[in-house]
C-alpha cells in the first residue's frame, strides 16, 4: 500500500527539522504510538504502535531505523514490527522530505506499507482507510504542535 501526504506548516524549515528529531515531542503526534525510546541517537529507535479497528486491536513493538539523512531536506527510514498475539507483521518504508514554499515549510511523507499475516484478513480497503486516517491525524498534530508554539 502506498501513501502520500503533504502538510504545509507556518514555521521555518530548521524548526520543523529539529522537531522531527525531538523524539518525545514527535512521537506524541503519532496516533497510537507509545513507549518510544532512542536506541542510538539519529539512527535507531523503538516504539510500540497500538491501533484499533472496531473489536480488532493490534500492538506492534516496532523498531525504526534511519537509513539516509540529508540535513534539512530528507530522511529515509524503515520501520518493522510484529504482533505475535494475532500473528501479523508490518513493514513501513518511509520517505520524509522538507521544502520551503512562500516562507512556510512543506513536510511531505511517502510511505510504503506492507501488512502480512492474519491482520491482512481484514481487507486491504479497511487497512488502507485506517492508515490514511492515522497519517492525516499525524500530519495535523505536527502542524498544530509547530504552529501553536511558534
Amino acid at each position, binding site marked *: 500500500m502506498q501513501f502520500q501526504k503533504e502538510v504545509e506548516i507556518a514555521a521555518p524549515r530548521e524548526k520543523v527539522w529539529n522537531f522531527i528529531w525531538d523524539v518525545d515531542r514527535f512521537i506524541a503526534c503519532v496516533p497510537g504510538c507509545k513507549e518510544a525510546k532512542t536506541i542510538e541517537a539519529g539512527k535507531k529507535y523503538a516504539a510500540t504502535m497500538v491501533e484499533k*479497528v*472496531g*473489536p*480488532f*486491536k493490534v500492538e506492534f513493538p516496532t523498531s525504526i531505523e534511519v537509513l539516509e539523512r540529508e540535513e534539512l531536506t530528507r530522511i529515509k527510514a524503515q520501520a518493522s514490527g510484529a504482533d505475535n*498475539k*494475532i*500473528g501479523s507483521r508490518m513493514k513501513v518504508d518511509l520517505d520524509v522530505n522538507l521544502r520551503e514554499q512562500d516562507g512556510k515549510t512543506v513536510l511531505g511523507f511517502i510511505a510504503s506499507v506492507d501488512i502480512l499475516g*492474519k*491482520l491482512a*484478513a*481484514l*481487507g*486491504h*480497503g*479497511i487497512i*488502507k*482507510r*485506517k492508515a490514511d486516517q492515522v497519517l492525516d491525524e499525524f500530519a495535523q498534530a505536527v502542524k498544530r504542535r509547530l504552529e501553536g508554539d511558534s
Partner: protein
Amino acid sequence: MLRRFRLEEPESVAEASELLGRFGDSAKVYAGGTELLLAMKEGLAHYERLINVKKLKKLSEVSADESTIKIGALCTHHELETSPMLQQKLPALHKLEQNVANVRVRQVGTLGGNLCFAEPHADPGTLLMALGATLVAEKSSGRREIAAEDFFVDVYETSLEVDELLTEIRIPTPTENFRSAYLKFGYLERPSVGVAVAFNLNGGGLSEVKIAVGCAGPAPRRVPEAEVLLNGKSKEEAERTLSQAGESAGRASQAISDLHGSQDYKEHIVGVLLKRAFQSAVT
C-alpha cells in the same frame, strides 16, 4: 483455538449494562456469536469476559401495531425469515432475512448482533435505513432511540456507548402505498454491494424516497443525492431518471476498492441494483 475467557450471564439489561460499564474494552456482548467467536477463534480479537445476553428472553419478541413493528434485538435471522407477520407487513425485510449468509448463520445469528458488529458487508443495516428504522439503546441509567442512519459510524464501529445494549429495532408500520426492496450482488461469501430503496407511491407519484447503499464502503449510508432526483416524480418520470440517480448513488456510496471489487465496479453495480430494486418495489 479460543483463548480462555470468563462467561457472565446477566439476568437483566441493566445488569448487562453494568457489567459492560465496569469492564469496558475487556468485555463484549455475546449473542449469536457468529461474527464474534469467529474473530476470537482466529485470534483477531480477545476479550477477558463475554457477556451472554441470550437468556434475556424479552429481547426475542416481535410485535406489530398500527404504527410500529418492534423486533427484539435477539431475534435470530431464522426467526425473522419464518415470521408470517414480517412476510405480510415487510416483505423486503423478510426476503433479506431469507438470504442472510447461510442457514447455519441464520439459525443462531441475531439481527441485533449483525447490526452491532457493524461488519461492512452486512445486509440488514442498509434496508433498515431505507425503512426509516430506529434502534433502541438501553443502559442501566436509561434508554434512547438512534435513527438507523446515525447508528453506523465506521467500519466495525457504531454509535453505541460502551455500557449500552441494542435492545430493539423499531420500524414504522408500512401504509398501503409503501413500497420497498433490497437487492445485493457479490461473488464472494459476502456481498460486494447492497442497495435498498423505499418510497410511498400514489396517484401523485413518489414521495418520501429513501435510498441506502451498503457493503460498498465502510458502513451503510443513505444517499440523499439520489433520493432528491426521484422524490416528487411520477413513476414514469422516476424510471427515466433512474440511470442518473444510480450514478449519483454510486458516487455518494463511498465505495472502496477491495477484494469484493474496485471502486468503479462497485459504483456501477450500485446503479444497476438501484434500477432493479426500484422495479422490484413498484411491481
